[in-house]
């Protein structure tokens, strides 16, 4: 790594000499706490890393200066000295009015971007009056059924002046179309709008399971969004290729890295196959990773991700523009690491996870609230989570320099090992015929289920300790205040749906839905047809049903 190895100064490796002369006598006196030390992902970690562990790493090829290919040290030459990461807190619950109030509060508290959490009926393309929506309306996020809801969600918030991230996948084109129409009503220029839709269906099949249509027509919807935005909304991030949910479902750090980037490769390939020019759409792809509890493994993961993406875009796909090589990513701290027991400990967990994301060079960040193993966060808990980021940004000093851990023997070794591991997964998936084929064969799903079970067993055996859960347990804890979401939102949304249905032009709705089906059967761009449906106040359920009629629904074969 351009660091002079001490091996040249002596005849024998310095580490071996140290082990014999210093370590062994020490171990003879007092043994180590554990027989083997591993990361939270089960990766073995050595006692000490020295220059001898990084002799195969070349600075220019493997690291590169900040802002220089392959961007291991970051995509910006100035790191956070120029601009801090975007502090983007994911929020949504109940009715659009309630969530609108929370957004105004987050913006007033210094949040710099919005991030919309939708409820399960919206995510699954069901209206509030569908039987499967029973008890779910407004519970996990905000309910948005028609354009009327989107108008209220952003009431008094100028879409030209903020960036918005929307966590929506199967119905992403429908919800995005609503956002675009609200922007149009506000007089905002689509060409200047900025934000992100998650729009990542592959990780739904792999991990979170919020799919509607089968994989192949789902991919068509996504490439239609790529094509539409390249022309009409050029600053919009058309997808957020997500490892977050893969990790939450129980994958290891390496599996999160490998499956997410392989998903990214799959989208690029499908975009090219749909006739798009690589440098026209790849710069608008963004990524979304988890920040889990194993500090250095996470940092290595982010650094490896940037490097792999740069290399794959340039070498595998021949992308010409630097913007196509640069991986930009959002991070969220690990929801799954939060405990219901001793919930205040979650503030500490989240702070450490957030620190790893910042040291890994994240471009935006969500920090979880301390009460999220119990419910959606209270306003106070959400504010504390945002303050955690602000303390890191302004008080810790780690934003003063770029990639402070670059050159660490351990971090560089781990970064390269993660990269090599990811390439091995790519080979396996390529041999299966790509990620869609691998998903159809259940491969990533099985890998994740296996990892999550192994981790749970390690917790049961106390090989992995979780404070408050299997170590330092307290009896008789006093409860903390939580946000309780009742059924008023469901009743309000039901009433609003009836009201919208009664005042809209039913013939126009039917005509636009028919046109959508025609487009889906043919090869036109579904986004264009969806915008017409939205302007006619068609519901999310109606638009998804129209496509269900054409494409059918996906059903997973249950397996354990």
């Amino acid at each position, binding site marked *: 790594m351009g660091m002079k190895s001490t091996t040249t100064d002596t005849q024998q490796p310095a580490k071996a000499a140290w082990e014999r002369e210093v370590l062994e006598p020490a171990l003879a006196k007092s043994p180590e706490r554990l027989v083997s030390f591993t990361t939270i992902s089960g990766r073995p970690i050595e006692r000490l890393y020295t220059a001898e562990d990084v002799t195969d790493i070349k600075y220019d090829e493997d690291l590169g200066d900040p802002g220089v290919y392959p961007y291991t040290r970051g995509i910006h030459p100035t790191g956070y000295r120029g601009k801090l990461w975007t502090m983007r807190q994911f929020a949504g619950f109940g009715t659009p009015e309630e969530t609108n109030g929370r957004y105004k509060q987050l913006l007033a508290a210094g949040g710099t971007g919005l991030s919309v959490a939708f409820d*399960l009926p919206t995510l699954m393309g069901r209206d509030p009056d569908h039987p499967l929506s*029973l*008890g779910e309306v407004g519970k996990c996020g905000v309910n948005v059924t028609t354009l009327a809801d989107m108008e209220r969600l952003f009431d008094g918030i100028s879409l030209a002046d903020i960036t918005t991230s929307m966590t929506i996948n199967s119905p992403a084109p429908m919800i995005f179309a609503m956002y675009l129409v609200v922007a149009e009503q506000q007089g905002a220029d689509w060409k200047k709008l900025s934000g992100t839709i998650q729009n990542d269906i592959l990780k739904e099949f792999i991990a979170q399971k919020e799919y509607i249509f089968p994989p192949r027509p789902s991919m068509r919807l996504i490439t239609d969004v790529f094509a539409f935005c390249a022309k009409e909304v050029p600053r919009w991030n058309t997808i957020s290729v997500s490892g977050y949910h893969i990790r939450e479902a*129980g994958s290891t750090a390496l599996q999160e890295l490998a499956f997410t980037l392989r998903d990214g490769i799959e989208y690029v390939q499908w975009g090219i196959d749909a006739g798009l020019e690589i440098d026209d759409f790849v710069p608008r792809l963004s990524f979304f990773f988890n920040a889990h509890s194993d500090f250095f493994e996470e940092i290595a993961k982010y650094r490896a991700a940037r490097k792999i993406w740069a290399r794959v875009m340039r070498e595998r796909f021949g992308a010409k523009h630097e913007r196509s090589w640069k991986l930009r990513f959002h991070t969220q701290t690990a929801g799954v690491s939060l405990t*219901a027991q001793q919930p205040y400990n979650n503030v500490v967990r989240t702070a450490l996870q957030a620190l790893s994301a910042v040291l890994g060079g994240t471009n935006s960040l969500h920090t979880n609230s301390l009460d999220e*193993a119990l*419910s959606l966060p209270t306003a106070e808990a959400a504010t504390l989570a945002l303050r955690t980021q602000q303390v890191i940004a302004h008080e810790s000093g780690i934003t003063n320099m770029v990639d402070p851990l670059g050159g660490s023997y351990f971090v560089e070794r781990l970064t390269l090992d993660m990269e090599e591991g990811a390439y091995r997964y790519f080979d396996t998936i390529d041999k299966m015929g790509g990620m869609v084929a691998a998903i159809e064969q259940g491969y990533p799903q099985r890998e994740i289920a296996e990892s999550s*079970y192994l981790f749970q067993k390690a917790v049961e055996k106390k090989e992995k300790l979780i404070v408050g859960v299997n170590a330092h347990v307290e009896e008789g804890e006093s409860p903390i205040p*939580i946000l309780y979401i009742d059924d008023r939102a469901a009743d309000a949304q039901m009433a609003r749906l009836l009201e919208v249905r009664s005042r809209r032009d039913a013939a126009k709705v039917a005509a636009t839905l028919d046109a959508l089906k025609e487009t889906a059967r043919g090869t036109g761009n579904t986004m264009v047809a969806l915008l017409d449906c939205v302007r006619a106040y068609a519901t999310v359920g109606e638009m998804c049903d129209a496509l269900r009629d054409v494409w059918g629904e996906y059903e997973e074969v249950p*397996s354990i």
Partner: protein
Amino acid sequence: MRRIRVIIAKPGLDGHDRGAKVIARALRDAGMEVIYTGLRQTPEQIASAALQEDADVVGLSILSGAHMHICPRLMELLKEKGLEHVQVVVGGIIPDVDAPKLKAMGISGIFLPGSPMQNIIDFINQRVQPRAEAV
């Protein structure tokens, strides 16, 4: 003696199945016979599965907040089918204030995030009397 027979079900629209799958494997490794229904099961489908499979236990995994709608409906259907002996346990995100209400409607166990698998295994073993194999 026949093995304890457990149905693990994911009701509602939520697809987060990590907990359901981990507990299904843990119960199977503990010697129980486990049937996993898969995602998005209605209370009607779950009750029918309990009847058809002659289940001793139904385990529900609910994280979305819909438990106060799903549980009463399932308990009503189990009663209609004469399945009052079936132990129903719920795992997931359940606010404290709802726990007594769920217990009152006949849910026998509630397990929050972080519950050790062994506690759930022990709970089921204590509650279910092994039955003779049906002839």
